[in-house]
């Protein structure tokens, strides 16, 4: 399928039983673009992200990421996922491994690196998130902010072509949010393509290329941050933005 977008999702529908969660979502993302997704809780933001790397199986539609048809039965999904990093609200670090162990697991098991090479690459990734000195710590010995940065390192170590963030700072104490956003800003400056679901409007304003507003399983409107935040055209967008800005 020819496409010049690094992510090209078309007409994505997702049903959970009788619940129609995604109702025909189109999302195209350019290389090096940072797309920011906002919307009320339950509008389908997480489900959309999870469809992109097929953690969730879409009911219908097509998804092409970096030229790979994600929904083709012939696609080696494990190979394709290496190229799509994902960062979760709850970090999901492996508690029985050190930070370095977390970062090197997929390097060894999926990318096929030897232990020494994996550890060298893992240390570079930890360095990039500012945690070179925490390599031997287990998740239980790290703060929430540090855990999330290790989770980011776990993804970037695999040199993904695109990174998905699902509310990466929502589980963090306010004083720890900054360090994670800092790392994300650095990633963006290095040219990483990113799709970010978050409520951090300040970050969206100065880092996002495009803000997408979702409601009830559909993209209602999208555009540059200033346009969406200052001049939303849809009533639902206006209501949502008014609501979160009051907080």
């Amino acid at each position, binding site marked *: 399928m020819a496409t010049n977008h690094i992510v090209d999702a078309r007409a994505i529908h997702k049903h959970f039983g009788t619940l129609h969660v995604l109702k025909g979502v189109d999302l195209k993302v350019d290389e090096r673009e940072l797309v920011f997704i906002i919307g009320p809780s339950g509008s389908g933001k997480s489900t959309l992200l999870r469809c992109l790397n097929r953690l969730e199986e879409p009911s219908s539609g097509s998804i092409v990421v970096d030229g790979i048809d994600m929904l083709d039965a012939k696609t080696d999904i494990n190979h394709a*996922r*290496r190229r799509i990093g*994902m960062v979760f609200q709850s970090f999901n670090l*492996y508690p029985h491994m050190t930070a370095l162990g977390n970062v090197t*697991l997929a390097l060894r098991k999926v990318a096929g690196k030897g232990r020494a090479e994996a550890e060298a690459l893992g240390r570079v990734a930890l360095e990039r998130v500012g945690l070179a000195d925490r390599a031997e710590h287990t998740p239980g010995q790290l703060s929430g902010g540090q855990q999330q940065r290790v989770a980011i390192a776990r993804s970037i170590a695999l040199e993904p072509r695109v990174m998905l963030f699902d509310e990466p700072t929502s589980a963090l104490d306010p004083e720890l949010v900054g360090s994670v956003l800092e790392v994300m800003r650095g990633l963006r400056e290095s040219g990483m393509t990113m799709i970010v679901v978050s409520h951090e409007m300040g970050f969206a304003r100065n880092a996002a290329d495009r803000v997408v507003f979702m409601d009830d399983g559909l993209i209602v409107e999208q555009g540059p941050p200033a346009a969406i935040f200052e001049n939303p055209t849809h009533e639902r967008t206006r209501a949502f933005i008014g609501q979160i800005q009051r907080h």
Partner: protein
Amino acid sequence: MSGWDKFVETFFNAKVMWKYLPDILSGMVVTIELALLIVVTGLGAGLALALLRSLAIRPLNWLIIFVVDLFRSLPPLVIIVLMYFGLPYAGPAPSGFVSTWLSLAFVLMAFSEEIFWAGITSIPKGQWEASRSTGLSFGQTLFNVVLPQAFRLTIPPLTNRTIAITKGTALGTVVAVTEILGQASSAMSNSYNPSPLMMGAAAYIVLFLPVVVAARWIETKFAWKR
């Protein structure tokens, strides 16, 4: 003769003990052999069933659950007796030793399958998702991420269950297995004296107390902070 002397004479009779010590020792050897066989095969089969169950193949899982529930509800003694006295009518005639081994291994398999399975399912979905999202396969995730965490959770219930079931080797006496209790009770009836039973009790303590202590040590060693 004072009451105390009479008590010692009866329950800790040196002459009787010395005479039957070799029997008790050979009983210990049999018990150790049985216990090791039960633990290795029972836990191995239990883990294998739990892994099969994680593949989520419906009819297979129903079968696993049926077998597991069956062996969890039958008293071990009944299984041993059925196997030893009943199975020969259907063809194979296992010895008392084999009947006891297989019966208790099945029971341990059933209980440990449930414990392993509970451990596997208690690992948060996010662990699977994080691992799969980095490209690890189902099997790689199971073996590298889920099982190492599940094992730590299963160690306390698993050691308790394993100890309880291996103590069931004493049931082998009813099918003429010459393990500790069998040796002790035949020595008791031959000598008209309960001292061999005391030796038997001592033998169980010598065998199982270190295991219980080791289990406690393993539990603390494998606990980790989340």
